[in-house]
C-alpha cells in the first residue's frame, strides 16, 4: 500500500467508505470530497486512492458501475455495499477507540 502523506495508516479506506456512504461518487469526486471535508488539511497523493478502491472492491465493501457524469464523461461510480457499511462501522469504532486512547495520553500530565 502506498504511503499517504499526512494520513494515519489504514484510515484511507475508512475515509473513502465514509465519503461514499451518502451516495455513489466517482474517483475524482471522492478525492475532492476528502479534501473539501478536511478543509484542505489532508493532502494525499490522489492516485493512491485507486489501490485503496481496488482493495475495497476485492473485499466486497464497494461496488462500481460505469455511468456518464454531469460533464458528459464516462466515469466509474463507487457505492458502498451492506458489507461495506459493516466495515465502516468497525473501522469507525476502531478509529474512535484509538483516537480516544491517544487523546487520553495527551491530556494526562
Amino acid at each position: 500500500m502506498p504511503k499517504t502523506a499526512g494520513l494515519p495508516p489504514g484510515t484511507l479506506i475508512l475515509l473513502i467508505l465514509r465519503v461514499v456512504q451518502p451516495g455513489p461518487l466517482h474517483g475524482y469526486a471522492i478525492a475532492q470530497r476528502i479534501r473539501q471535508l478536511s478543509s484542505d488539511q489532508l493532502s494525499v497523493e490522489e492516485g493512491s486512492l485507486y489501490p485503496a478502491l481496488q482493495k475495497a472492491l476485492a473485499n466486497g465493501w464497494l461496488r462500481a458501475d460505469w455511468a456518464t457524469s454531469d460533464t458528459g464523461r464516462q466515469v466509474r461510480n463507487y457505492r458502498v455495499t451492506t458489507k461495506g457499511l459493516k466495515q465502516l462501522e468497525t473501522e469507525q469504532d476502531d478509529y474512535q477507540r484509538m483516537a480516544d486512547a491517544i487523546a487520553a495520553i495527551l491530556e494526562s500530565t
Partner: protein
Amino acid sequence: MTTWLRRIWHLLNRSRRERELVREMNEHRESMHDPSRFGDTHRLLEYSRDAWGWNWLDDALQDLRLGVRGLMRAPAFAITGVLILAFGIGLNLTLYQMASVGLLRPPALKDPETLARFRRMAPNSSTTTIPYPITQVVAEDRSVLTAVFVEAFAGVVWGKDLVHIPALFVSPNWFSELGATPSAGRLFAEGIDTATSEPVAVVSHQFWRTQLAADPGAVGRTIDVNRKPVTVIGVSSREFTGTDLNQPHIWLVINQREHIFPDSPLLRDWNSDGVDMYGRFTQGTSPAAVRERMRALMAALHEERPDAVPADEWLEPAMATVNFMDPGDRRGIVTALSILGALTTLVLVVAATNVGNLVLSRASGRSRELGVRVALGAKRSRIVRQLMIETLPLAILGAALGVMLARWASATIAAVGGMPESVSFAPDWSTIAISLMLSVVTLLVIGAVPAWRVARQELIAAIKDGGQQISINLDRARLRRFMMGAQVCGSCLVLVLAAMMTRTLQRVLSNDLGFEYERAAILQPGLGRYGYDDERSIAYWNTVKSRVDQHPEVAALSIALAPPLGGRISETHFNDAPRLEVISNHVEPAFFTTMEIPVLLGRTFGPGDDPNASVIISRTLALAMYGSPDVVGRGFPRSEPTATIIGVVGDAHSIRIESAYTSELYRPLRNEDYVDAILIARSRGDAATLAPVLREAAATDSRILPGVNLLRDSFQSRVTGTRIASAIAVSTGLLTLLIACLGIFGVVSYGATLRVKEFGIHIALGAEASSVVRLVVRQIVWPVAIGMTLGVAAAGPIGMALTGGPIQLQVADPAAYAGALLLFVTSAVFAALAPAIRVITSDPVHALRHS
C-alpha cells in the same frame, strides 16, 4: 458472492479490468489542476494488482516462463531429464497397474465379500479340485452356503474345421451368482438349462468378435462343439472376467456335459479330478464357521463312502476379496510385490536424484545470476521457489510421458502374457493419484533439495568472483555426493537382481531340465470323457502304441500319467526331506528312454514290479533323504517305508520347470491310470512329423478328438512369464545403469567445467596428466565405492525375499554378481574418464583467459 469467487472472477477478466482502471486513473489525472500530484500510474497499477492478491501467480508464471525458456535453450538437458523421469514414473506405474489388476483389485464380481472358492484339504496335502458328486452334497446343505456353483475347464473343438478352443463347463447358476450380464441374448439360468433340455452355449465377447465375425444374429445360431450341435443363447459382456484371468471362448452347462463328452463319468465319479467349487456364504457367516461346517460334511461323507473320502478332510474357503488366494500364498506374493515396489521406487528416486543433480549443476552455474537477484532484494524463499518452479515443466512432462509409458507397457505385457481382452489397464483414480504422488516426490527431489542447497550459499559473494567459490563449494557438497552414491547404490542393486533373473532364465532355457523336449510330442486323448473303463483303456492304448510304434519316424514311446510340462501336478512333502517338494508321476518302463532321463543306479521298472511297492527316485531326492545316491534296495520313504527303491535316475524337471527346490519320484503305471494317461513319443527327426502320426493313431476310436502338442511348444509357453520378467528386469537394469552413468558423467563433467580455472593453473604449472585426472575424478570415488558396496550387499537379502513369490531366483550366483559389477565398473569408469580426458586435452591457457 464470497471474496474468493470475486477474486477468481477478477482474475478471469483481469486484462479488461486493468484497462478500465488505467482509463479511470487517466481521466482523474486529466481533471486535476496539478497532474503531477497524482503519482506514477504504473506503480499505482502494481499496487492495485496487489489488492486482488494475484501477484504470486504472476511471479510463478514468470518463473515458469523463465524455466521453459531455459529448458528450450538446453534441449539436451530437457530431453534427458524428461526421459529419465518418464522412465522412473512409468516403471512404478506399470508395476502398480499389473499388481492391481492381477492381485490387489478384487475381481469384478457380485458381492465378493460373501464369495469363496473351495480347496480340498487333508492334513498333509491339498488339491484345488473337488469331485463333482461331493460338490452336489455340499450344495444340498443350505446351513452356511446359499448357493454352490462349479466350473471345469476343458478343451473342445469347434466348427467344421475342428479348431481347438478353451471351454468352461459351469453350473447353470454360475453367471447369476457372479453377477454377470450378457451383451446379447441371455446367460444360463437354473431350472431352464437342465441336463435334459436342448444343449446351449454362451460365447465370450472376444470369441463372438473374432470367430463369429461379430455376427448380430449369433444368438440363436447353432454351432458345432465336438461335432455336436449346440445353440448359442448369449454373448458375454466385454468386461466380464469370470473367476480368474484364464478366460474360455465358450461356456457350456455342466449338466449337459455328457452331450459334448458322451459317457464322461465326471459328474458321477467320486474319485475323479473333479471341478472347481465356489460358494456364496449366507449373510454374516464367517469363513471359520464355513470351514467347520465343511469338516462336518466331509466327515459324514467319510462314514458313507470311505473309499472316496478319507478321514480328516475338509474344504477350505478362500475369499473373492483376496482373489480366491490362500492367505499364505497371497502374503508371499504381496511381500514380493512390496519389495518390487520398493525397488521401482528406488529407481524413481535414483532417476529423480540424477535430474536433481543436473539441475543442481545448472543452478550452481547460475550463481552469479542468482546473486544479482539476491542483491536486488529477492528473499531466499523466492530463490528456492524460482528454482523449483523452473523444474515443474520437467516433472509434468515426465509424469505425462510416464503415464503413457505405463499404459503401453502394461498393454504389451498383457498381450504377450495372453491376458484376456476384458482386463482393462485404463488408468483409474488410484493410478492417477499414485502418479500425482510420484510426481510430487519427484518434484521435491529434483527441485526443492537442489534449490534449497543453492539458496543457502552466499549468493551475493558470487557477484564478486563470478560464482567461483560457490561452484567449488557446491561441487564438493556432501549432498551432491550423497545423491550420486544413492543412485549408484540403486542401480547396482537393480543390476545384480536383473543379472540373477537372467541367469535363472538362462538355466531354464539351456537344456538342463534333465530331459529331452525338442523332439518329443504328447498325445492326450482324455479317455475318461468317452466312458472308457480301465480294461478298455488298456486295450485302446495297446492298439495306439502298436500303431505309433510302426511308424519309421518314431524313435521311442511311453505312456505316463502326468504329461511333461503339463498342468497336472501332484506334490508331496516327506518328513525325511522337508525342504523338497516331491512331484510324483506314474510311468511305463520305457519312460526314461523316451524322455532321455539317465538311469544312474539300479534299473527301470520291469513287468514284475508291484506298482504300490516299487519306486524310482531322482538323484536330488536320494541325496536329500539318504545323504547318498546309492540307495537302491532301501525302503522308501526312509522313516516309514512303504516301497522299495529299485532305481535312481538323473534329476529331471519334467513337470515344473521353474522351481529349484523340487524333485521327482516315479512309480509304475497302475491299471486305473490308463484312463487318464497320455502318450509321449520321441521322433528321430523333427517333432512336427509326430503330430499327424499321433492323431491318426488316436483315431482308432473315431469319437476321440485328441489333443496333440509338441513339448517344445509347451516349453516356450511355460517360459513366457519368466522371459517377460527377465526382459523387464534386464531393460530396467540397463536403463538404471545408463542413468547412473549419466549421473556420474554429469557430476564429473560439471565439476570439471566449474573448476576449469583451477585445473588450468595445474596444467599450466606442468602437472602430470594423470594427477589432473585424479583431481577431477577424486570427488566421486568414495560415493561410488560406498554406493556399490551397499547396492551389492542389499541384492542378496532382497533377492532371497523375492524368491518364493511368483519369481524364481537363484540368489547365490557369483556369476550374476561378477557380471553386474564388471558391467557397472566398466561403464562408471568410462563415464568418469570421458570428462576428465577432455580437461587434460584442452588448452589451459585458453581456459584461464576465458574464465
